[in-house]
């Protein structure tokens, strides 16, 4: 019988022959089941294995391909990079040799060429500023929703998620119409006499900040709301009872208890914002330097796949640190909840 209490499918298959199934099929199925069981891939193991298989196929394999390309030479060919693994035949000694050539100059270039360092730093700065803006905008919104009447919370959260029903690209395009010269914003400000009609925000860092903050705000609000909603209002009464003015109670109780939400939201905004390409491409100016754009240029304009791959790998390494922080905080939070 199944140890885990799952449907004892294998037992039934190896035991009897269900009507209407050809004998060889059920025998084959039983053999597969027996094999999977032997390697521990049955029941719970199978369920856990599925996402790992997914990650292996669609994350690790592509990563390894990119990783390999980053060590090759750029060549004018199809594909535009050399193979780092070569099988050579030494005719004199009549031997076969497997030769692996790692071209490290791509990575050296990342370190020596100012462009890449600037692009990375600039990306980090843009992402950090956008994350901060999201936090400053998102926290009051999440707080208001969490403190709204329970019947209102659902509709309000719906409004936060609603923009996802429209294509991301279209929403970014909409900002072009708002921010361009003679656009919605310029006309409105012009009507009040604040700017002249040629004034525009488009194609500037400010436009990129607006775009990123707008696009990623829901990712900040969702985890913040989740932590703030769980916060027991009685704790604030207790703080008030012990002498805290409302703002002190916020700083000493609400803020520390919503820290997991702040960390989760910030990372959910920061990580994709660092590698953002579409928003700086559409809204940014020629000076807006972000690593996503550099990456795109290396791939498509320069057709230098090895350098582009190295840029991608370096970006990944940059982001591994915050991702690990995220994992750690989340694990700790779950741990705390279980113990509660």
């Amino acid at each position, binding site marked *: 019988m199944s140890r885990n209490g799952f449907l004892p499918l294998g037992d039934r298959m190896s035991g009897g022959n269900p009507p209407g199934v050809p004998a060889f099929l059920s025998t084959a199925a039983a053999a597969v089941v027996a094999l999977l069981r032997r390697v521990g891939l049955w029941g719970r193991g199978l369920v856990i294995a599925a996402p790992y298989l997914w990650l292996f196929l669609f994350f690790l394999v592509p990563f390894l391909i990119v990783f390999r390309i980053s060590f090759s030479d750029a060549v004018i060919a199809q594909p535009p990079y050399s193979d780092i693994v070569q099988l050579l035949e030494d005719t004199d000694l009549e031997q076969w040799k497997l030769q692996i050539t790692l071209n490290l100059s791509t990575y050296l270039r990342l370190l020596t060429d100012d462009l890449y360092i600037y692009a990375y730093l600039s990306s980090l700065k843009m992402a950090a500023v956008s994350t901060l803006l999201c936090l400053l905008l998102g926290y009051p919104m999440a707080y208001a929703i969490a403190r709204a009447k329970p019947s209102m919370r659902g509709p309000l959260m719906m409004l936060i998620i609603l923009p996802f029903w429209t294509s991301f690209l279209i929403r970014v395009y909409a900002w072009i119409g708002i921010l361009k010269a003679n656009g919605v914003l310029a006309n409105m400000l012009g009507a009040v006499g604040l700017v002249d009609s040629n004034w525009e925000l488009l194609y500037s860092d400010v436009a990129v900040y607006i775009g990123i903050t707008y696009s990623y705000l829901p990712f900040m609000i969702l985890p913040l709301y989740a932590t703030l909603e769980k916060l*027991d209002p*009685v*704790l604030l*009464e*207790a*703080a*008030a*009872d*012990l*002498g*805290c*003015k409302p703002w*002190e109670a916020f700083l*000493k*109780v609400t803020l*520390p*208890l919503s820290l997991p939400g702040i960390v989760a939201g910030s990372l959910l905004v920061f990580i994709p914002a660092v590698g953002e390409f579409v928003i700086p491409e559409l809204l940014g100016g020629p000076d807006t330097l972000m690593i996503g754009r550099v990456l795109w240029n290396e791939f498509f304009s320069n057709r230098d796949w090895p350098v582009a791959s190295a840029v991608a790998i370096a970006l990944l390494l940059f982001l591994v640190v915050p991702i690990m922080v995220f994992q750690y905080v989340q694990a700790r939070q779950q741990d*705390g909840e279980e*113990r*509660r």
Partner: protein
Amino acid sequence: MATAQVIRNPARLEPWQDPKAVPYVRIEKVTKRFGDFVAVDDVSLSIYRNEFFALLGGSGSGKTTLLRMLAGFERPSEGRIFIDGVDMTEVPPYERPVNMMFQSYALFPHMSVEQNVAFGLKQDRMPAAQIRDRVAEMLALVQLDRFAKRRPHQLSGGQRQRVALARALVKRPKLLLLDEPLGALDKRLREKTQFELVNLQEKLGITFIVVTHDQEEAMTMSSRIAVMNQGYIVQTGTPTEVYEYPGSRFVAEFIGDVNMFEGRVVEDEPDHVLIRSDEAGCDLYINHGVPMPIGTQVSVAVRPEKVLLSKDPPPDGGGRNATRGIVREIAYLGDASIYIIQLHTGKTVRVTAPNVTRRVDMPLTWDDEVHLSWRPFAGVVLAQ
């Protein structure tokens, strides 16, 4: 119902008896409405220094709302609240000389026991060394010194209760509000903590106002009880007064168990009253007069433990305060037994009797015919 009251220091005054005493907390005609719902309805109360005052009532009786108005979390719709002579009606909670122990304890989950207790002192900008001493002293008082570094979620229910108490007491408030302080504890721990709370209150000389729905808890701990129902205060008095002389049917039935006999006044003299009751099957003689004309329909409340059971007729069998019935149910509690007796009139009566003899020797058993009697002071006349 057997209720143990902590016997209080007899030297202690009963300030509410003293016309010159100045109340420490004065609630004047306070009403609180939530929309159309009237949670607290025109309540006036005076509570004196060092009292252990209980607000007793069922859910929705307004007791918690009244407590929250004292803490400052709710603002009265009408009326005023004075604490130590100062009008506190509009003062926010963080400026009141009052601390509260919350029903859910409301401990800060991100702080250790020590930090929780120190919270209020830090808020007062007390020097760090002094905070350390005070917190240590307080934790010793509630026997939690070994748990100072733990987080609330690592503590048992009883330990959390004591942290909440320490946190509320550490600022040495003149008035401590306790919202169902023992509600989350199991029975044994609750009894133990009741005595601890009373001792602590006497030692520290703090005025306690405690909200509870548990009449036994209120009886055990408090100097006075205010019984609340539907936003009103139905009766205020010492536990003995409220139990022995309930002012209304509601109070008689809410506090402890009671047998109610309907009847009508047939004799009303200054020193006694006689009530004829078909339900009881006898005349009820009560040794105090009532200001009610002959013929008035009244209820007479007789507590189960005041009824005597015997197989033989009571010696003074003048047909007053004496009736007969059949034992229908017996609940053996160890120290006492509860008998459910059906009178010959059909009325069911509850009687508690201490098990003076061993149960096996008990002379009474199911379906026995028994005589019930009670003394002239046992009954309480209640208007209908």
